[in-house]
């Protein structure tokens, strides 16, 4: 048993290695994702200065040997803050995406499996889809802004807002897959041996309909990081002294006009590269998981 698992794991790893060679972008993305995870775990311990420590008399210093990315207007070391930020940003993105994934998949399975049906489940299915429609009718950012504004700016509220926002995407992806899977004969066979609707939906249909939602995980994490930063940028996200890319850009933006470009540029670069990394990984995974390209 263990030998079997081990063999399949090594063959999968070999396959992944071969795949990566043909798509270098995937490897680059993997590297960036790994780096953000590493920084989320150890970033605050590696930073040369405290991420929230103001250095007296060291405001707005340009990049130098002591301050690789300079210091900002209140004398905080930009480099220390840039590498400490993934802990906040990644936590927000991961937790909200995980919540959205679970909620979206569950609702997607229910709405897809019972779509077009009659009775209470059929109506529930229609209600879920209409609900998602209404939800998505609002511009994403305005909606997040309203949610956070309503509940006050804090990390928890940003997580809640982003989770709500991403549910419809996972819901639609899963629903689409379920609509396809539920027509396959083994679903019928499960009915033939006396399975009940809900049981068939979650035991037989769901595991066969997860791929699109799984492939969407990585881009959603990247997107969530961007959105969390954007919320912080406008002051509706993470409160200010906490190291976070969006709020750092917000702090640095006014100084760009007066020539201190470094305070906003470096957190902006970090943010852009991170999102690029997650997008590349998501893109690669979609190709990797697609059986047509798997040869």
């Amino acid at each position, binding site marked *: 048993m263990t030998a079997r698992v081990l063999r399949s794991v090594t063959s999968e790893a070999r396959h992944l290695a071969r795949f990566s060679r043909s798509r270098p972008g995937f490897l680059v993305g993997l590297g960036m994702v790994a780096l953000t995870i590493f920084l989320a775990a150890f970033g605050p311990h590696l930073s040369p200065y405290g991420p929230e420590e103001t250095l007296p008399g060291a405001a707005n210093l340009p990049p130098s040997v002591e301050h690789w990315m300079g210091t900002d207007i209140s004398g905080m070391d930009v480099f220390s803050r840039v590498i400490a930020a993934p802990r906040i940003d990644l936590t927000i993105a991961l937790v909200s995406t995980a919540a959205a994934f679970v909620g979206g998949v569950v609702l997607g399975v229910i709405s897809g499996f019972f779509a077009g049906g009659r009775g209470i489940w059929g109506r529930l299915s229609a209600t879920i889809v209409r609900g998602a429609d209404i939800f998505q009718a609002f511009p994403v950012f305005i909606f997040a802004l309203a949610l956070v504004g309503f509940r006050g700016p804090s990390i928890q509220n940003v997580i809640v807002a982003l989770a709500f926002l991403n549910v419809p995407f996972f819901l639609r992806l899963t629903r689409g897959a379920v609509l396809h899977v539920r027509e*396959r004969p*083994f679903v019928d066979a499960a*009915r*033939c041996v006396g*399975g009940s609707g809900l049981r068939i939906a979650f035991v037989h249909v769901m595991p066969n309909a997860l791929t699109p939602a799984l492939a969407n995980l990585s881009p959603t994490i990247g997107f969530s990081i961007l959105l969390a930063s954007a919320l912080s940028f406008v002051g509706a996200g993470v409160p200010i002294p906490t190291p976070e890319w969006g709020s750092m850009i917000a702090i640095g933006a006014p100084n760009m006009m007066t020539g201190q470009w470094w305070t906003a540029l470096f957190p902006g670069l970090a943010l852009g590269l991170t999102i690029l990394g997650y997008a590349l990984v998501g893109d690669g995974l979609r190709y990797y998981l697609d059986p047509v390209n798997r040869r």
Partner: protein
Amino acid sequence: MSTRSVNGSVDALLEIRDLRVEYTRDTGAIRVLDGVSLAIHPGESLGVVGESGAGKTVLVRTILGLLDPPWRVVSGSVGYQGENLLAQPESALRRVRGKEIALTTHEPRKHLNPVATIGDQMARVVQAHRSASRTEARARAIELLRVVGIPDPELRLRAYPHELSGGMCQRVVIAMALAHSPKLLMGDEPTAGLDVTISLQILDLMRDLVRDFHSSLLLVSRDLGVVAHYCQRVAVMYAGQIVEVAEVPAFFAGAIHPYSRRLLRAAVAATSDRRGTLSSVGIRGEGRGASCPYARRCPVWIERCTREEPPLELVASARWVRCFRHAEITAGLEAP
């Protein structure tokens, strides 16, 4: 069991009466089953034959109550143990499906969940109708796999459907169907897509198991040879109707309904030349009104066939035919 009737025998295991099923669409409904009456007796093997679109599969699915819209049961009943299955709520049907009446189909691999192991799927089938622990369910699964002749059942439990051959998958499906010793096993072309030797092994297996489990078998097939070999009675379907029911020896000694006769001749002709084949004029009963659905293709049709629909008549002991000219045919009328 020779003198039992198609309708209304007291000791039938399953009794279908005047079943009418439609496929509804915007432009009107298509009658797919048109007054089907059929009884299956305890311990018997009944073969149902007919061409594509005759309604064989729909009949099987109706018995299990598996039709969803746009399918619609217009009228009729499926009597099982004194209850009309068509009038039962879904929860009651769930207790019948797989436990009392089980189904095996063609394309067995597609009927297995591709992301679950054989063992998990079989354990779920076992647990669907009886409370059993995981270990008990697995033990039962091994036992069942052994019954259907799968070597090394302990190893196969960990296999996924794609790791088994088509014949193996069909054995697994049969094992699942037999998990609760059903009173009626239905096979909807269980050997389509399998090669000849495997087909015969599977059919032998089904016949033996049905005998050992004291079940009845409803075997849907296009292969008259299979029906001749494995069934005691045969029902011929055409355009959603049963056109002839007979005991197998009598049927193969001489079919009465013109369609059955051509079917038999076609089976023989297929090995020599194409004499006796049918033109494939549409067989749907759309807009047919009151007439024999076979009239347009029938070699011995008379004017009456286009005005009236022949009833299913008892013409000899245990022999039912839906044709106005059955007496003449029995007396020796040959098709031109």
